């Protein structure tokens, strides 16, 4: 059986675009806006080589009402 590697859920801020970025357990990155039910309004995000993501403390994840923790 193949082991599927799970990624740590992580939060970032991209200061250049002033956006929150979430990495989900599958390793996908998402832009989440500063609104209520932010996760429902997510959009895909594709980091490129010079993307500079600043980590945000893990306790902020509750702000976005993520469906996973």
């Amino acid at each position, binding site marked *: 059986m193949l082991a599927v590697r799970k*990624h*740590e859920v992580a939060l970032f801020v991209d200061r250049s675009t002033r956006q929150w970025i979430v990495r989900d357990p599958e390793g996908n990155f998402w832009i989440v806006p500063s609104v209520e039910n932010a996760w429902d309004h997510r959009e895909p995000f594709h980091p490129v080589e010079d993307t500079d993501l600043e980590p945000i*403390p*893990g*306790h902020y994840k509750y702000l976005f009402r993520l469906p996973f923790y």
Partner: protein
Amino acid sequence: MTSEHDRLEAARTQELPWKKWGPYLSERQWGTVREDYSEGGDAWNYFSHDQARSRAYRWGEDGLAGISDDQQRLCFALALWNGKDAILKERLFGLTNNESNHGEDVKEYYFYLDSTPTHSYLKYLYKYPQAAFPYADLVETSRRRSRNEFEYELLDTGVFDENRYFDCVVEYAKQTPEDILIQITIHNRGPEAAELHVLPTLWFRNQWSWHAASGRPILRQVPGLPGQSVVQAVDPKLGERYLYCLADVPLLFTENETNTQRIFGVANRTPYVKDGINNCVVLGEAAAINPQQTGTKAAAHYRLIVGPGQSETIQLRLSDMAPAALASGNGRAGAPLGGQFEEVLELRRNEADDFYKAITPGTLSADEANVMRQALAGMLWTKQFYHYDVDKWLEERGCDPFKATRKAAPRNDHWHHMYNGDVISMPDKWEYPWYAAWDLAFHVLPLTLVDPDFGKQQLKLMLRERYIHPNGQIPAYEWNFGDVNPPVHAWATIFTYRLDKARQGEGDKEWLKSCFQKLLLNFTWWVNRKDRSGRNVFEGGFLGLDNIGVFDRSAPLPTGGYLEQADGTAWMALYCQNMLEIAIELAMTEPDYADMSLKFTEHFLWIASAMGHMSGDTGMWDEEDGFYYDVLRLPDGGAQRLKVRSMVGLLPLCAATTFEGDRLAKYPEIGERFRRFLDARPELRTAIHDPLKNGVAGRRLASILDETKLRRVLAKLLDEREFLSDFGIRSLSRYHADHPYVIQASGQEYRVAYLPAESDTGMFGGNSNWRGPIWMPVNLLVMRALLQYYSYYGDAFTVECPTGSGRQMNLYQVAEEIGRRLSNIFLQDGAGRRPVFGGAKKFQDDPHWRDYLLFYEYFHGDNGAGLGASHQTGWTGVIARIMHLFATLTPEAALSGSKTAYFETEGRAAKREAVGAR
């Protein structure tokens, strides 16, 4: 018994929760390890003072002269604005470790003027300049100064010139445990009228943002009586509370949530964020506050114009009583805060006076009584709700201890069992707003003068499974829970037990037993972890004495090898003695503990004799100097003593305890086994005091030092050219002023010279110095030991004190003399000067400053001036116990009653109070 004693009793029996509300709000939450989520663990820079007004805290709250409930759900504190500053004064400002030339330092003037142990009455003074607060000047000037220069203090900036400042006095008086009257009095000390914005602020600690299931509390304006503005606070767990504000003042509402726009550069989800009130008042941004008059943070906005030399008063009431009940059932009709406000406030003030009168020896002068009261008030104000769930914290930074993909945390990686969420006695709520295990043991000594139950609870708390590590280590402090503090917990435990026993008539054996079991784990941890060679000589690293050694004792040595530490070994000898005392006490009613008493007797002898015998001629005792030193063990098998005359070498003297000869007479087999043990190992007795030799009243003495060594060490201790200063015992001998200790290692020179003031190195953050200054806790240990020796040797044993003076004293008199010199740090001298204030003219001369005491972390080795943390009332508060002890104990009682004499004195006083009440 006084009314305050009644309240303590009601709190103890859980009849009424008189301690539910108290000054449990920290004075600094920013810059702490708990709030640090940086990759490298840079706590000071990760969450700065500048961010604090805009960024919600994760683990606690802070504020000015504040209070909270004991779970810190709801907080109340003072905010101020002089119309000049760029920000509200919501919290104390200070420099971070890197910004100041001597480490972190609060740059404000504030004073803990009074507190009863249930906080039924509290009084606090904050001095706020009328000119713009010199934030930038303090940072920039301090940064330019070298470690060889003085710190740049707020008074040095000139902002208090011409007395252009406000004295802001905050008083709290509890009418009931849930009904708190608040009076804020603003005095203008300046020559002209000046305006001050006063913003009493109520807010909820943010828990809702960090937990999926946490209910959100709410603050909202509700109608009140004419001349009254009312905030209703509703929390799912706390229930309803009301803040009544006298006068029809504007109420400003926002949310205690992060201003993500300012902190992270991302748009806010709500326009109402933590700094909303700041931005409304200071920047005039009306949109920053919620016009719906609701939120999780609210302030009443008073604007006062105070004439020169005049004062204005604001009254508020934080209560569980709804407006209708307040209007109908509490006081004269139409009185917005209830008609009894002034009467209750005055009553609580008087009750506080009665309480302190009852516990203060009548022989103390008015000045001495003032010092004692402010020391105890400071201890009580320094209680703080401390919240830190290490497992959660590790998880939130991607260091979940149970995930394979985890990364290592920069600190506390192996302390994931810890969950702290309690009111704890802090060393200093600004500079050290986190508990420190050995500090706490000292805190308990003065705290038990006013609140024995709190002292017992604190000692037990550190031993609970949520604190002590599964391996038995007691947590040191949050910067590194795994660091090693001196093991003084058992000493504080037996002290507190005896005190309680004398007061209550019988000891709390269950409490003592439960402490003893956990201390056994801790003792075993020490033996297994810090005795590398298994020869009963101990290491331990810096052991609380920071820069005292020639090398950093917590780091790998530049020479290679390791240190056998005189202090580490002496601490363990004392630990054995304290455990022995506890075991004997428990054995009086439970025979199982008799065996433990023999175990600790033998263990003490192994350790004590190892200090003299180790490795032939390179033991810790130096016969030529008549002093103990650390021994450096080199990789090539060589060894040398590091001949620095310091507190390290005095600590073996402190490991001395007398025992009544007949305590274990009911267990003759224990005595027999002990004799067999000694007969089989006669060498154990040769290098230490003979444990079989009877002293006064048939007492036995457990001591590393025999009489000859004791006299030799005392000759140095009491020599004013060495350790004895006019203000207590120095941490390093003055001998090293002219004779620095120098050693070469790895091509580098290491030296220790006498340095009576601040540190000149960055070792241990550079904000403390054990190379000369006077430290209160170790002075206390020296005095304790002297009283032990006195109760064994009696009046016949005299020494010259000071050395070379020709004046002979017995050891009680010597202890008393040291106590007198320590007290003189705070007391006015013949010229009306208090040495603690050093050269600060304002503090020495100004009637609005000179009687407000600061209990610093440590004191100048030559002139007694306060140094280090300015509000470390924590262990410096032991001065209250010292003053009390020598005002109530007599040499005759000490000799006849030995170690229980002092406790019985206090117990008798407590009983007299009880009789008086009947």
